[in-house]
């Protein structure tokens, strides 16, 4: 023992740190990553590698040379953004699109606001929307690259896209489903056609359970999104089951699961309090379904999250934690 340490209380700290949290998110993403690599093969590996490396590199360069602040790469947050972005891209997407997306996510969405904790929008989602608008062809090319396992089916569109197109043509849902050989079981395990991370609902749910078990996230936001999607689509489906897709379909297809578990729960861009989280989740669920049913795009999760991101400060102000003794 040399000199005694002295500091203000508390003298102990919970076994928790930013890097541990971010690492846990990466671990929770692993099932989805593995499934996507298995089914989409080298192109998925390529997207992941390009996206993660670019994110980390851009963050390093910006902190080092532009901001001249301590390097924040070691906190794993750039890696999380990288993985999430890759999982949000079509598997056949060219590598340079992923790179541009990564540069945009870190360089524009995250660092221009001041880095970790300061950004208003979720970097991965904002980058995805940016790419969708900038490279609509590359971003909606749902061709299936050769994977390590599974059939080499070449799918032309996502389920949601097929449905939207079919409905626009005037078909009924039962006709569309019958034509596309749709089953719920398929969406749970291997749902070819869609972003790399949307392939398996089960893999995402495993990640969700892991995040909950590690107390990284609270279930409020995710569950309120699911509940809203189910209730909203349920009402419409009951009114006209041939025109509006059913609740389970809406929950299991597209980006609802991936977005609700990993993107909407991003600390920085979601409300602080549990009550605020529920409002946030309901908002995302509603907007998603509105876009899916009535919008021009087949999928609305990304837009919904981005729109709700922008009102988070207001939600934070309106839904504060109840204070002790100030009823």
């Amino acid at each position, binding site marked *: 023992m*040399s*000199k*005694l*340490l*002295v*500091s*203000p209380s508390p003298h102990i700290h919970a076994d928790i740190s930013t890097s541990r949290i971010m690492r846990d998110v990466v671990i929770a993403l692993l099932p989805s990553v593995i499934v996507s690599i298995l089914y989409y093969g080298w192109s998925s590996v390529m997207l992941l590698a390009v996206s993660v490396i670019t994110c980390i590199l851009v963050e390093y360069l910006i902190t080092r040379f532009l901001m001249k602040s301590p390097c924040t790469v070691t906190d794993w947050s750039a890696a999380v953004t990288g993985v999430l972005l890759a999982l949000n891209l079509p598997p056949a997407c060219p590598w340079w699109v992923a790179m541009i997306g990564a540069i945009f996510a870190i360089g524009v969405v995250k660092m221009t606001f001041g880095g970790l904790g300061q950004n208003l929008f979720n970097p991965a989602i904002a980058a995805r929307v940016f790419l969708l608008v900038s490279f609509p062809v590359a971003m909606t090319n749902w061709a299936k690259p050769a994977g390590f396992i599974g059939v080499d089916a070449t799918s032309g569109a996502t389920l949601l896209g097929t449905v939207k197109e079919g409905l626009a043509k005037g078909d009924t849902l039962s006709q569309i489903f019958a034509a596309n050989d749709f089953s719920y079981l398929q969406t749970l395990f291997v749902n070819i056609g869609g972003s790399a991370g949307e392939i398996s609902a089960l893999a995402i749910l495993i990640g969700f359970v892991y995040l909950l078990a590690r107390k990284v996230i609270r279930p409020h936001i995710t569950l309120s999104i699911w509940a809203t999607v189910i209730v909203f689509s349920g009402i419409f489906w009951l009114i006209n089951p041939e025109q509006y897709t059913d609740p389970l379909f809406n929950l299991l297809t597209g980006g609802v699961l991936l977005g609700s578990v990993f993107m909407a729960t991003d600390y920085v861009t979601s409300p602080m309090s549990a009550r605020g989280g529920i409002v946030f989740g309901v908002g995302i669920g509603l907007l998603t379904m509105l876009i899916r049913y009535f919008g021009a795009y087949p999928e609305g999760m990304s837009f919904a999250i981005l729109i709700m991101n922008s009102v988070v400060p207001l939600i934070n102000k309106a839904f504060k934690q109840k204070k002790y003794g100030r009823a």
Partner: protein
Amino acid sequence: MTTTIIWTIVAVTLLGLLLAVVLYLVAKKFKVEEDPRIDEVEKVMPGANCGGCGFAGCRAFAQACVEAPNLDNNFCPVGGNEVMKKVAAVLGVEVKEKAPMVAVVRCNGTCENRPKTNEYDGYKSCKVKAALYSGDTGCIYGCLGCGDCVAACQFGALSMDPVTGLPVVDEEKCTACGACVKACPKKIIELRNKGPKNRRVFVSCVNMEKGATARKACKSACIGCGKCEKACPFGAITVEHNVAYIDFNKCKLCRKCVVECPTGAIHDVNFPTPAQKPAPKPAAKPETASPAAAVETAEAAAPKPAAETKRPVQSPATAPASPVTEKEAPKPEKKEE
């Protein structure tokens, strides 16, 4: 087609006219009467908005100057006498010239003089540290070394000396706004007369403990022995609560006290030669030759030996042995900017 265009032009013009009338009426009704001299005074202010004058900013100060009957109680420390003269000219009043001031750090507790007794591990803020306990050295009055003063200084005039662990004042940059004085929870920093040719003598210690205790905590503490008080021919020095204080209005810079002080707690700065008594090696200090020497702030940071014996010697270019304050101190300041 043509009629649409004409109608549009007419409608927009009418709307514009109507709004102009409304604006005119509103402006007339809610006009704030303000002395135009406030604007004029504000123009001559430095515009630092540092609050050193005691007002919220330069405009508030200008307003106070305009409203006050004379300028005796208002002084802009940043602009100094020059700005005050301009203010006086605008307002057409007399202004008394004030001696320029400078912030002085009154602590000798370098790492060497004042060994650490424990290791502080909390948030690096003097305020937080002072609220927690007496500090990580034996001296309960001295500098805490977390740099609240450096953070408070808007002019980049303060920096922490990594060697001594004490703040150093850059005389050139210091405007004597007093922000550091307010920021220091230990009340170590004082605004003192800059002095003729920037020469000053001051007690660089505020330890009010009894001599033995103070000495035990810090080799260069003022022990309140009173030798300086007796030596001072001008009655400028008083010893109270075991610590000496030199009234800079009475001090004539004779430096008898510097020689007398048994611990080297009294510092003299910017003198060409060291204070003499049985002086070891009197040597000329190349003060006028180099701007670096003028920067030499020495207060506090010049440790005790520097005040008595070390006063070197060579030209600044070849002065590796010159006190840290000359060579090292300005460096971190540049980083600050």
